[in-house]
């Protein structure tokens, strides 16, 4: 169903359809990038070539897809591993009650594709970790509307691993900009990350607030918050008393919630704690983090604007971290997050190690200890094969040294190492693990 006039026969670009975008791209203006030249090429690029990946089809994802599709982006992929829950429907507006239980990515793609003629959103009902670098390499820009720090770090690490260097100089065409948005209640942030150039997710890890998790000893003996009382009922009393028989607690069953609520009230009275309500009980049991539609709208709009700016090079992108808070009044602030010197994700450009595949591991070890600029004492060397760690040699733990000593006499090829293999090396002389990249010579 296309509300915009149903001119599907005229090839999806009816007269005046993109006037709003042309105003930004086909004429000069006071806020454009100094190098900007008005032309019709930018719009064509958006419509026909620019490939965007949207990660997450939830609160931020729905807004992002809408914004991008209406701005002219047509080649969009969306990844989300979740299915639709009834509690999503108040703000994830691409979904309807009939869609509950279906994968978010698929329903979102269907909605956008039928609502906005010409737009081709490709859904992926998968985890981001299910794809490898050949998938991510295909995109010009990646936008995230994720709900976990772990996923952000993974994405961050993936894009950093795609960077290529020529003689220590970063190749700009290997950079895939990452626009990251996050919201929690009335607070949100949007940031622009150019892997290898600007601060990455790990550089600013301390900015994330600690995640709520209640310790068992507090729940068991010293509750202080209404949430502790609810968790006590949920974790300890329910399995002990089995009020409805041997079934587990169902967050969607009002009778179950009522039972937990009453037990929690009793406990809170014992410890003079206020604040236990039916609603809070539901929230704690179902692990609900309150979401506000307007915050998602603001942050997604900011992110989509950055995607537009970077894709068209018409405006100076956000530099580089914006915070937003409308708990009381309205507050926003933008600053330039700096790269962390010893960032575990992006501060190291793997150093080259040149060896023929027939070289023995012993030779690599000798290089690490004898090379004048390294002069390591007893380096530990590990790598990753088939997604799992392999300890090549580790001298400082006796039991591991004995078991890995045979590897010293094996060739790099025999050990399963290939050209471009990443090696992690740790030694008393290095404050952190140092990364090397194997470069096979002949």
């Amino acid at each position: 169903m296309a509300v915009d006039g149903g001119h599907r026969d005229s090839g999806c670009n009816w007269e005046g359809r993109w006037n709003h975008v042309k105003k930004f791209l086909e004429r000069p203006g006071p806020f454009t990038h100094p190098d900007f030249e008005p032309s019709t090429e930018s719009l064509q690029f958006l419509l026909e070539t620019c490939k965007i990946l949207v990660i997450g089809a939830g609160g931020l994802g729905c807004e992002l897809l809408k914004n991008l599709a209406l701005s002219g982006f047509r080649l969009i992929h969306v990844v989300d591993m979740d299915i639709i829950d009834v509690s999503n429907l108040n703000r994830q507006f691409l979904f309807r009650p009939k869609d509950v239980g279906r994968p978010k990515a698929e329903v979102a793609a269907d909605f956008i594709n039928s609502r906005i003629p010409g737009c081709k959103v490709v859904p992926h009902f998968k985890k981001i970790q299910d794809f490898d670098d050949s998938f991510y390499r295909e995109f010009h820009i990646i936008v995230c509307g994720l709900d976990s720090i772990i996923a952000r770090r993974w994405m961050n690490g993936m894009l950093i691993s795609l960077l290529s260097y020529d003689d220590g100089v970063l190749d700009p065409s290997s950079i895939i900009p990452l626009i990251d948005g996050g919201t929690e209640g009335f607070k949100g942030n949007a940031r622009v990350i150019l892997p290898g150039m600007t601060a990455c997710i790990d550089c600013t890890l301390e900015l994330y607030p600690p995640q709520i998790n209640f310790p068992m000893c507090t729940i068991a003996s010293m509750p202080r918050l209404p949430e502790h009382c609810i968790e006590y009922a949920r974790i300890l009393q329910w399995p002990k008393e089995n009020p409805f028989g041997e079934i587990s607690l169902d967050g969607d069953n009002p009778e179950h919630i009522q039972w937990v609520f009453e037990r929690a009230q009793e406990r809170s009275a014992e410890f003079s704690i206020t604040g236990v309500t039916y609603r809070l009980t539901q929230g704690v049991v179902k692990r609900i983090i309150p979401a506000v539609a307007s915050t998602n709208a603001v942050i997604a709009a900011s992110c989509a604007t950055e995607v537009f700016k970077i894709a068209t090079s018409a405006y100076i992108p956000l530099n580089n971290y914006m915070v937003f808070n409308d708990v009381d009044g309205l507050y926003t602030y933008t600053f330039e997050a700096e790269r962390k010197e010893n960032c575990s994700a992006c501060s190291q450009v793997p150093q080259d190690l040149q060896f023929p595949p027939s070289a023995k591991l012993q030779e690599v070890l000798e290089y690490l200890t004898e090379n004048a600029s390294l002069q390591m004492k007893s380096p530990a060397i590990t790598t990753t094969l088939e997604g799992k760690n392999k300890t090549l040699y580790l001298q400082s733990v006796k039991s591991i040294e004995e078991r890995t000593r045979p590897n010293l006499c094996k060739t790099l090829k025999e050990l399963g190492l290939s050209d471009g293999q990443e090696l992690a090396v740790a030694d008393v002389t290095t404050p952190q693990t140092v990364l090397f990249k194997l470069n096979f010579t002949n």
Partner: protein
Amino acid sequence: MLTLASKLKREDGGKTGRASGASDSTHRISIRDRLLTKEVAELETNLPSTCKASFPDEDQLHHFQLAVSPDEGYYQSGRFQFEINVPEAYNMVPPKVRCLTRIWHPNITENGEICLSLLREHSIDGTGWAPTRTLKDVVWGLNSLFTDLLNFDDPLNIDAAEHHLKDKEDFRTKVQDYIKRYAR
């Protein structure tokens, strides 16, 4: 420089596949594994004299056992085994630790669950897990559960704590009894 990058990509008309050999995700060393290479290499030199670490699989640096043999206090002469598992999300999250030896202790249940603030992801008072902490801190923390972190006031095993409150000598006897039966 950013505009140049975008222009270059646009001229490509898409992405030219870069031959990169082994740089796919199966070969990328995760942050956890990078950290473990360093922390395990340093482990033995930083152990307290009462602790010993053992690795059942030399390729699984994220899974090992720690044996603690306290040389003072109530738990003297016992040998307590802990199992340590370092999750994928390390070091944003703490290692998961279980006590494999049955013990009568206010902060360790008889099923092996441990109450140690260092191992907690979120703590209001700042003594919980932080990415600045390492395996060395975890080992020292576990060791301290038998000395200065032995805490009867904020117990996980409430029965053990109350036992100590009621009758210290009887508590000591039970601790030694458990050691004789399970911690040799």
